[in-house]
């Protein structure tokens, strides 16, 4: 996370986040499903992702406090995985699959088109924080290539026209 430097953290004391009672209830249930608290880390990060609208240093602190493990450890696990929403991400994360089967069916056109339409490169977020464009690896939907995932939803058999419609119709 290049944009979250320790210097920045030192300047602005991270705001303290707390889970809502509903989230606590879910976490308590998770503890009953695993023999260790740590094993609930991935699902708890999912809860944090939803709860705080994305994961950043403050959310990491909160998860670490909850699970009684060090924030450094949580940060290490969090950054290993690519699919969590980061607090710097836009409202819609456009994840375009760019592995072989999608590449054979034209995912580059999709990326190029989105890049041109939104004025950002893969990995960037629009200034209004509405869209983040990402090139991701195989989404496991190669038969309907090219494929893009917007937040939780798959959009398959993409054409540029379909793509325009999808983007324009997002609320």
């Amino acid at each position: 996370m290049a944009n979250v430097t320790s210097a920045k953290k030192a300047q602005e004391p991270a705001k303290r986040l707390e889970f809502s009672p509903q989230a606590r209830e879910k976490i308590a249930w998770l503890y009953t499903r695993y023999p260790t608290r740590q094993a609930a880390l991935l699902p708890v990060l999912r809860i944090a992702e939803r709860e705080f609208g994305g994961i950043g240093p403050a959310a990491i602190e909160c998860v670490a406090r909850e699970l009684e493990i060090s924030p450094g450890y949580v940060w290490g696990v969090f950054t290993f995985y690519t699919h969590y929403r980061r607090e710097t991400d836009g409202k819609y994360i456009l994840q375009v699959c760019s592995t072989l089967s999608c590449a054979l069916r034209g995912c580059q056109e999709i990326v190029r088109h989105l890049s041109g339409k939104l004025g950002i490169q893969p990995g960037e977020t629009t200034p209004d924080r509405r869209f983040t464009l990402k090139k991701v690896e195989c989404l496991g939907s190669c038969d309907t290539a090219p494929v893009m995932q917007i937040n939780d939803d798959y959009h398959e058999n993409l054409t540029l026209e379909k793509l325009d419609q999808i983007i324009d119709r997002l609320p």
Partner: protein
Amino acid sequence: MPYADYKTFEKVLTRHADQPGSHTLDFYLGHGGYEGARKAVTQHTPDQIIDIVKASNLRGRGGAGFPCGLKWSFVPKGSAKPKYLVVNADESEPGTFKDRVLIERDPHAIIEGMLIAAYANGARISYIYIRGEFVKGYCRLVEAVKEAYQKGFLGQKIFGADFSLEVTVHRGAGAYICGEETGLLSSLEGQRGLPKIKPPFPAVEGLFRCPTVVNNVETIANLQHIILRGADWYRSIGPEKGPGPKLLCVSGHVNRPGTYEVPLGINLLDLIDDLAGGIWKGRKVKAVIPGGSSAKVLAAHELNLSMDFDTLAAAGTMLGSGGVIVMDETTDMVSALYNLMRFYHHESCGQCTPCREGTGWLEKIVGRIYHGRGRMEDLDLLLNICDQMVGKTICVLADAAAFPCESIVKKFRPEFEEMIRKGKGHERRVFPVAGGPLIQIGALSRHNQERREEQHPMKESALKRAPAPVGGLHD
């Protein structure tokens, strides 16, 4: 050996997958659901189940093709530790999308298989590890598990017997390496998904350092049919040493990409030409990856093969996860390899030096050839690096990167040499809509629309043909 007859083959795993509501418990019970698990739990001892599965010659469907019954028999008997069952639904091998059909269309078949596997192995706690991207599949599984608990198929005293099972659906978060069984277990323990050295194998010391059976979704889905119809029936489908129905995924340059349930032993040409509708745009085939991107590539003249574990292994490649990626004659193989090497470099967990550095080097060197800055000696360098990677790491990701690299460089060497010779002056064919010049963005949408129109009528007509592609029917 004759090829398996796929035309008269009666679908087993996906027989209901294209019917509306197939994911609900009501539908499932209406079509003989949970009878296999009931029979297993009420009429057999755990050891009998292991013997039946051994006799069926069922081989794991995740990629390695290890005999399932044998894997189960490694779980120590009489250990005081709890035993775990983990279902690997982290389907992430490029070119593979078979488990998704089962997860989304038939989640109760997975739960039923888990009951049988857990009963046989003495596991009372189980997890389904599903990849983070499959949100719909995750919801379907969670819903199915909930229904199963409500109707008493999970929990305590299942089928009135002294047998209990807890199932938790655990969602991953985007990491290819978590499909490797020990990486998956690390991830399930709340760690980075780093694979662990074997032995000890998970059957002896796996999840939370307890004996753990890890099975692929498709393997698990086969169990109820083996219990209900017997090992002899199962062995009669396809080659005896690795029999059964198999979901094969065809993607890339074919007219009808999709998931096809076929008997193992189908001819690869029949799969591509008949079921998948042949190569698109009337072109010829150039190369096929037969078992997910980690398998060695086959050139056009090598395709007359039986799709089963042993034949493909003898041909120097593997059935792997059954992801068949087809590339037509216009495909730029340097570009295809560059794409794959980027994938493996991105997904290497970074634990072992040969893999962490090796995948990076492969990507970099193939990249410089692709960008017209290659040197002739790079080709031998690539092969040398591959040689330094295979078998030298904790898990097989390094091998998985080296196999396609080695085979593509060896089998398509003239293409690489030509690109190196021409250097930056090389007139690059645009991959993937390959063949034509780069189309300007404005003109592209019409072009694409036309391209889709010529391609899509197939989807409709495909439904009328038997067997229908399951993958085209995600609702």
